[in-house]
Each structure stands twice: as C-alpha cells, then as structure tokens.
C-alpha cells in the first residue's frame, strides 16, 4: 500500500492500521503522535484506525527545546 509518511513516499508491506504501521516502521512503543490526513489520531484509537491507499501520515515527537 502506497502511503506518504512525513512528506515522503512509503510502501507499507503489511500495515493495515496505524498501530501496525508504527510497528513496521520501528516506532512501536515510542512516544509519537500520529496525524492522519490532517487529523490527530489519539493513541487509544490507533488499533482501530485503518489505512487506505494514498493516506498521508505525519509523525511527531517531543525533543529538547526552550
């Protein structure tokens, strides 16, 4: 399935949900927030949130800052 992740093309191998995409990309268990097609996906909704061809996903995390 062809997706856009953080502005770059990404070919999902097996992922069908947000949770499985994070695991496939190596972000499972890390503190990231997911934006799917400009909509923030709460962490509790990731398992049930299915992906479709062409979806745009943005992933953010906290970093050091003043």
């Amino acid at each position, binding site marked *: 399935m062809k997706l856009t992740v953080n502005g770059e093309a990404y070919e999902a191998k097996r992922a069908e949900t947000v949770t499985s995409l994070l695991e496939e990309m190596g972000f499972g268990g890390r503190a990231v927030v997911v*934006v799917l097609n400009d909509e*923030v996906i709460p962490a509790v909704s990731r398992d049930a949130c299915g992906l479709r061809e062409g979806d745009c996903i943005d*992933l953010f995390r*906290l*970093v*050091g*800052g*003043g």
Partner: protein
Amino acid sequence: MERQGNGQDDWIVGGRRFSSRLLMGTGKFQDSETMVGAVLASGAQIVTVALRRVGRVSREDDMLGPLHRLGGITLMPNTSGARNAAEAVRAARLGRELGGSPFVKVEIHPNPHHLMPDPIETFEAARVLAAEGFVVMPYMPADPVLARRLEDVGCASLMPLGSAIGSGGGLATAEMLRLIIRDARIPVIVDAGLRSPSEAAAALEMGCDAVLVNSAVAASGDPIAMAAAFAQAVVAGRNAHRAGIMPRGGGTALATSPLTEFISGEGT
C-alpha cells in the same frame, strides 16, 4: 521565628501549585544525561520541550526518555517552529497528546535572525487555545499593553522576554517588565535572554514570579553546577523581594555608623 524560603511561598499557575520559581528549557544540551542532571539540580517543576517530525531513522536519540521517568515535573510543550497562529494552535494540540499536560508555551517567532515574538499571531493563538482549555503561557514582547490583552483572553501567565532568545542580553527590557509586573493579575515569568544567575535574581527582586532559562544553563561550562546556581539565585531574589528592598538614596550618602567626632575631641 519563621524563616523565609521554607516552602511557604508557593505560586499557582494553571491550577497547579509550584514551589520552584525556576523553569527550565531542555534544548542545546550535549546529551540526555547532562540535561536530566541540570533539570534535577535546578529544582524546576515546569520544563519546556519542543515538537518535531520524527526522522526516518527510527533509532534517533531519545533525549527526553529519562525526563518522563522523573516525578513531579510538568512538561510544557512549546510551539517553536510555528510561523503563525494556525500553526501554533496545531502544534499545541499535538503537544498536548504527547506531553500529557494542558500547559503550552505559545512561541511564534517568524524571523530567524532576531527571533522576536509576533505579537499579533501570539495573541490570536493564545485566544484560541485558552478557549480550548489550554493553560496558555505566551512568550511575548515586553509590552504592557499586549500583556493586558493576553491576560484578558485567558492566558495563565505572561512570559515577556528579557532580551533576544539565546542572546545573553540580560534584562534589557527591565523598564517595561516593571510596568507589566505592576499591572498583571497573573504570574509574570521572564523568558529568554538571561545569561547569569545575578540577572535571574534581579528579575525576582523586581517582582517577577519566576524565570525560564535554557541557554544560560546548557551553554555554560558546567550545566549541572550552573543550574544549581540559578536555583539559589532565584530563591535569593525572591526572598529579597519579599523582604522589601531599601529605597535608593538619591545620590546622597547616608552614614551607616554614627559620626560622633570622638577622634578630634571637639564638642566634649
């Protein structure tokens, strides 16, 4: 006799009670261990963090991992990187998902050369976020008129700059800060520009409720020792403010010791 600085001088922002009047930023540290050590040494209870897109390399250093495991710290995501109100509002919503607290430092500085906060976009973002229930702490120009407007739309505190971010220019805005402090009904926190603990002490002496530092600690020779020095300075400045600083002498000397002329013996 009750001594000051014994924990009876808490301040409240966003419905939470804090004893430390030093807020810490977590940027610019060379490694996670130093950053966490500095936060601990500072005694800070409010710590700022930033929000960034995750890189494609999944094993990026997790600077903040150890911070999450410290107790008693309120993480306050900032909106740095936002160039306007709409981007800041979006960043705040994402930060709330990640930080787990409604505290947000609204920070909108579109010009990378001077990093001065945009007053109009800051006001608009603060208005929207306060209405959504965020605890809004705006980084702002030291402008008493804007301060009142931000207070009126529901900000939880005011965070005027002492001087430009990372400049170490100190309390260049002292005159305006005094006007803001005189009229504010919410906490005033000097954010940005402080270089040394004496400047933090001066801010507290003039009546600021707290200060926020980052570069002054992270870019110092020994960040952990400097964080501890800032903690002491903030306590000293606050206690001096509470004690009531003596008025200026107006250029006239006033003797401390009695000036009886016992040496010459005149008048005896």
